[in-house]
């Protein structure tokens, strides 16, 4: 894990997502949905993932970055009515959240990269989701 590495390529972010993101997902327990959602972001930037979640299933969401500078990566899960149903701030910026939707609905996983304390920081961020194994 590096600090403030510049010029991340898409391939590097994909590699990071497969290596770290899928390990955190635990594919023995959760079937990956097939999307890596990995991208190089700079301090202060934001990314959203829009995805349907279906009632009766258990989901795991993993949001992770490859730089310590993004240690306090903030993600929220928001429904169509703009109600925040989860904010990882309440769990000390955890990178993993598991839940069972009460109703089927499209949710937004919104990730905000923390502002840099000093200088310009860039790193890979991955947002990975899995559902209880079929």
């Amino acid at each position: 894990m590096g600090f403030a590495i510049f010029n991340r390529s898409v391939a590097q972010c994909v590699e990071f997502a497969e290596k770290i993101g899928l390990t955190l997902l635990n594919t023995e327990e959760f079937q990956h949905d097939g999307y890596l959602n990995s991208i190089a972001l700079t301090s202060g930037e934001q990314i959203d993932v829009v995805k349907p979640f279906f009632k009766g299933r258990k989901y795991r969401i993993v949001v992770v970055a490859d730089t310590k500078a993004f240690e306090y990566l903030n993600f929220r899960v928001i429904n169509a009515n703009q109600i925040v149903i989860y904010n990882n701030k309440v769990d000390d910026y955890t990178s993993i959240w598991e839940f069972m939707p009460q109703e089927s609905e499209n949710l937004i996983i919104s990730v905000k990269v923390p502002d840099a304390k000093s200088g310009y920081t860039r790193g890979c961020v991955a947002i990975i989701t899995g559902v209880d194994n079929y």
Partner: protein
Amino acid sequence: MKDVYQLLILLFFPAILFFGACEPANNASKDAKNIDVADADSDFHEAKKIFYNLPSPPEVSDMLFSESGPVFNEAFLNRVENVDLYESSVKQALNLGIYSTDFSFASIAGQDQIAINYFATSQKLATRLGLSNVLSQDTINWLARNFENKDSLMDIITVVYRRSEAYFNENGEPDLALLMAIGGWTEGMYLATKLAKDLKYNTKIMDQISEQRLSMEIIVQIIESNKNEPNIHKYHEKFTTLNGQYKTFSNLLKEDLKQNKPVSQSTLKEFLKLEELVAILRNDFIN
């Protein structure tokens, strides 16, 4: 089954996975609940980028077909012989999604030989799209190690889908990734609406189909956010019409379910319209 995996591995194109040290995770397991985070809202602004994640072929197949039991009809699948019709990358991407769903459906139904044929066909299309470039010996070894002990063809197609999706995005072709997703989802709906008749339009399968209105809404968002991408935006009208029909059908079905009634005639009538619209779209994709 082991032979099936060996053959798949020979046919397979890759997932380059790396295993090793990983960061420790804080694991929070909680039920979804509304929480007061008003103070955090000001930290979030307009998104720089939005990823739309439609259910992948294995996911949609699992939801739609895992409870359909022995119902399987090969005639519903896109014929493997059609693969040579697809010369443009657009058609190839759409049909890579379609064949991946057919593969998933056949796997769930326990039709291993048919599944292998569809896997081989997906592989052929993937190669034409340039995906064979990511094939590596490491990947083949990884598959050999991991899949001989896992009786799950679905894992294989999930890896295929993931690598394809990542490859298109890495190579500056996100439109092909979206078309693959749209093709795969549309095939799932086509198969489900066809199977519904064999299942006598029971509420379970109808409800599963209705739930996919969420994916339908996402497809409309994808198309609307790709106004400058003609290969995607050309489907705007057809998917908008389909979305409208989806809403009509879903609302009627919801009423039936609320009253604990079997599927009503008016709901069935709207369902048949939906089936027809899905078939028109799917036939556009495969021809």
